[in-house]
């Protein structure tokens, strides 16, 4: 328990540590609701994948592992820079903390930029669900073979048996899941901007860094969502 009076401790808290733990608990409760929110999307994904496995194989083959993998690395790196921002704030290195926050925000924008490129590609290839959705699994199979990719028996069966309407369902879930994730990234970038302004103002110190810490929890959670989205959307059924 800290004995010195602290201007940052709100009157209804006993001390700074209690205030900090309350802030953490509040953010964790919010994150549990977020788990259930994304959980609904993951449940829909799992059920339809178990009903239409062939369509999921085809849908996943039309996504770019290079772009998805690159984005995974970018987001993991942004989690590191976020952790470093909290670390710097905890150790009274506010200038360094501001720089780590900027870097985190920039990596977030790189992720979103790559996502824009991916979405543009899907629009070009008529893979956006709706009246203009069009996919010909056999033509896609021919493209894979033309690219010199080894097409096994299992994969051939999937492409032959896939119903285009079910592939459209895969893309509905792809856009819903990555879209909701991207919305969280945009909100995260806004939070980073707010943290940056406050850090520059000198609001945070080793005695008070709760907003940096709980914003970090949110950022890492969004990273975790992508950790699951990447294999489930891009890698499933590649063999």
């Amino acid at each position, binding site marked *: 328990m800290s004995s010195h009076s602290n201007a940052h401790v709100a009157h209804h808290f006993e001390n700074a540590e209690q205030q900090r733990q309350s802030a953490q608990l509040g953010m*964790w409760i919010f994150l549990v609701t977020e788990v*259930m929110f994304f959980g609904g999307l*993951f449940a829909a994904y799992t059920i339809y994948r178990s009903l239409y496995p062939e369509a999921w194989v085809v849908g996943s083959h039309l996504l770019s592992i290079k772009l998805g993998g690159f984005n*995974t690395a970018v987001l993991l790196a942004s989690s590191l820079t976020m*952790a470093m921002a909290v670390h710097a704030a905890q150790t009274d290195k506010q200038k360094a903390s501001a720089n780590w926050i900027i870097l985190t925000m920039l990596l977030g924008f790189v992720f979103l930029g790559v996502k824009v490129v991916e979405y543009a590609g899907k629009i070009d290839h008529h893979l956006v669900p709706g009246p203009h959705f069009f996919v010909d699994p056999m033509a896609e199979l021919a493209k894979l073979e033309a690219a010199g990719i080894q097409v096994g028996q299992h994969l051939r069966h999937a492409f032959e048996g896939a119903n285009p309407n079910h592939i459209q369902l895969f893309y509905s879930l792809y856009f819903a899941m990555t879209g909701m994730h991207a919305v969280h990234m945009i909100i995260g970038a806004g939070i980073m901007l707010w943290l940056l302004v406050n850090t520059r103002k000198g609001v945070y110190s080793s005695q008070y860094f709760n907003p940096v810490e709980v914003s970090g929890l949110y950022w890492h959670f969004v*990273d975790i969502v992508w950790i699951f989205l990447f294999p489930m959307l891009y890698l499933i059924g590649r063999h």
Partner: protein
Amino acid sequence: MSDHHVIPVRVYLTIISILMVLTVVTVWVAFLDFGFLNTVIAVGIACIKALLVVMYFMHLKYSARVLWLYAGAGAVFFVIMMALMLSDYRSREWFPAPAAWEVTTTAPATSAPH
């Protein structure tokens, strides 16, 4: 109470290295054929990565135990939701629906449960 527990930077660097290696591994194993185990492996690796982020980047390992309760509750309720929804969807075709429920269909269910 661990007042202001500051995790050394080298721990963060170790964790990010493991996370990057696991990302490469998950892409690599996706191209090998393990049958239904491919999904198990992909989700398993993702769970390990998520656990590393939660424990170290989100400091849960060094946090008050009440936070473990809440983080655990999130996982438990997610599993309950998945288990109940999947057991509903996957068991629907096991038994024919009672004839009285077949209002909109023309042919009543005749096949025996398989």
